[in-house]
């Protein structure tokens, strides 16, 4: 029984993680994804020093122009350098993407795991709270938050995190409910392990697969949601930008100035593919059962 095998390993310490790392290193696609992500993060970090122009630097005389030697990725309708804007946009998008997703992940996984594991009335109560959150009119909610708390980027994380954890919680809960009746969990029970140990050692590692998959789905979602919220006036304000906003504006002029859509689109897609490869690699590496194959 592979489960027992893993169980056995687990009790010996953190070898699950070391094991996973070894497996991840063998997955070249995942490594490639990791490399791309690191590069993107590095570029974002260094942007203020390496960007060719200022992100707000306008040249209305040039206006929108295609890629050229001066402006490798062209300029937008204000004559601002697109390469610079994409680099600065990446800072915003990556920060929002990672932090808001982390918030959603933390709340969602804990909430779902507790609800699914404890079950009964607690589960019912917790899931009804999720239902309520789902049902509230998101936009009014955002507008109010904006008025009450003022406009800042922290609020953006909060708003996005507050929305994205709901689905995560549902997915984790259904997974946990399925898991807790499995033999190895019941075995752990009969061995007298504490509830918390069981959740930590057995439940959470076994739900990691779907959670990682859903996380890689959430990050792009978060980046686009950020664009929508910024468009509504919450979050970042011009002349700052983000990939989502750049794409948003690019769509409107995609017939006239296609480069305004294509380059930010490529930047976002590249990130997502990299994330996807890393996510899949992690999922496979952390999956206790693949060790046998």
């Amino acid at each position, binding site marked *: *029984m*592979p489960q027992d095998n893993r169980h056995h390993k687990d009790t010996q310490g953190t070898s699950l993680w070391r094991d996973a790392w070894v497996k991840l290193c063998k997955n070249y*696609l995942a490594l490639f994804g990791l490399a791309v992500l690191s590069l993107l993060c590095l570029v974002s970090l260094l942007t203020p020093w390496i960007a060719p122009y200022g992100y707000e630097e306008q040249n209305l005389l040039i206006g929108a122009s295609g890629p050229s030697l001066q402006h490798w990725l062209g300029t937008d309708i204000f004559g601002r350098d697109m390469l610079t804007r994409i680099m600065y946009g990446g800072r915003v998008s990556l920060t929002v993407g990672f932090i808001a997703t982390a918030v959603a992940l933390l709340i969602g996984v804990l909430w779902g795991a507790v609800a699914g594991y404890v*079950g*009964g*009335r607690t589960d*019912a109560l917790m899931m*009804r709270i999720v*239902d*309520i959150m*789902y*049902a*509230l*009119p998101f*936009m*009014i*909610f955002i*507008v*109010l938050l904006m*008025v009450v708390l003022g406009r800042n980027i922290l609020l953006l994380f909060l708003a996005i995190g507050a929305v994205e954890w*709901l*689905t995560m919680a*549902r*997915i984790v*809960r*259904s*997974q946990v*409910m*399925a898991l807790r*009746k*499995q033999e190895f969990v019941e075995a752990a029970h009969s061995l007298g392990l504490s509830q918390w140990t069981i959740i930590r050692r057995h439940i959470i590692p076994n739900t990691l*697969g*779907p959670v990682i*998959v*859903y996380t*890689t*789905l959430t990050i*792009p*979602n978060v980046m*686009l949601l950020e664009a929508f919220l910024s468009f509504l006036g919450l979050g970042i304000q011009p002349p700052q930008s983000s990939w989502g906003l750049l*794409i*948003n504006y690019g*769509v409107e002029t*995609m*017939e006239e100035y296609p480069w305004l*859509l294509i380059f930010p*689109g490529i930047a*976002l*897609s590249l990130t*997502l*593919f990299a994330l*996807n490869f890393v996510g*899949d690699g992690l*999922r*496979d590496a952390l*999956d206790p*059962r*693949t060790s046998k*194959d």
Partner: protein
Amino acid sequence: MLRFALNRLLQAIPVLLIVISATFLLVHSAPGGPFSADKAVPPEVIKALEAQYNLDQPLWQQYVSYLSDVVRGDFGPSFKYSGRSVNELIAAGLPATAELALYAMLVALIIGISAGVAAAMRPNTLQDYLPMSAAMIGICMPSFLFGPLMVLVFGIHLEWLPVSGWGDMPGDKILPSITLGTGYAAYIARLSRGGMLEVLSQDYIRTARAKGLSEPLIIIKHALRGGLIPVVAFLGPAFAGLLGGSFVVETIFQIPGLGRFYVQAAFNRDYTMILGMTIFFATLIILFNLLSDMLAIWLNPKLRHQAGGRD
């Protein structure tokens, strides 16, 4: 199972009550009233309008009278569309939205499950990467980009399909359904791949393989049931999301659906309309979540005992 469903329906009542109360407070505290306009509105007019819609009463009184109306199934008059009732507006928008959501769901399920299953059968090969990359593109291609692209290609350049409308011209339902469905197809593909991988490594599948059953038979008879649990858990929220989140697609394709009403209502501070639509959507979300939970239980025999036995 029946007891489980009844139990959940009973739980829905306090949930709805909280949703109504919270929304009521939210909309009434949002800045900008329903009657503010670009041109200055004379105070006499504001007074007359507020009197007509009972907005001059204390808030708790408005709340009580609103609740008693809702209990009787009356969502009140719309503030913005003078003379229209909220019930009437919801009834006018629902058919298009429901139809769109249904078609989009079909598109999503057919494409998503087949791509996900195909990928899971041979992980880390071309057969995995191709559909999964397509799914990734589907996710990062938001409908506000995918819709216009489809319109440009199929509507304007090839002139195969109408660029807008719903039921006005033959074929005008195709592009919106695909646009809305693709994003969800991508999610379903990823989730079903994950779920299938999980199941395919289980013992009973190995046993089945050892017994020499053919792979398609294993997939269809044994693996799908368990492998689709994550998908099923996602279906409830997804369907609710399709119903409520079709705003972008409805706008791009000029579809007379609920999504447009909802967003317009929020922008217009059409209090009764926001509340009515929220209650309506909340009810749908609760129902769909219940359905998807019931499906998950049905798919997972271990949970079946539990649902019967608890409470």
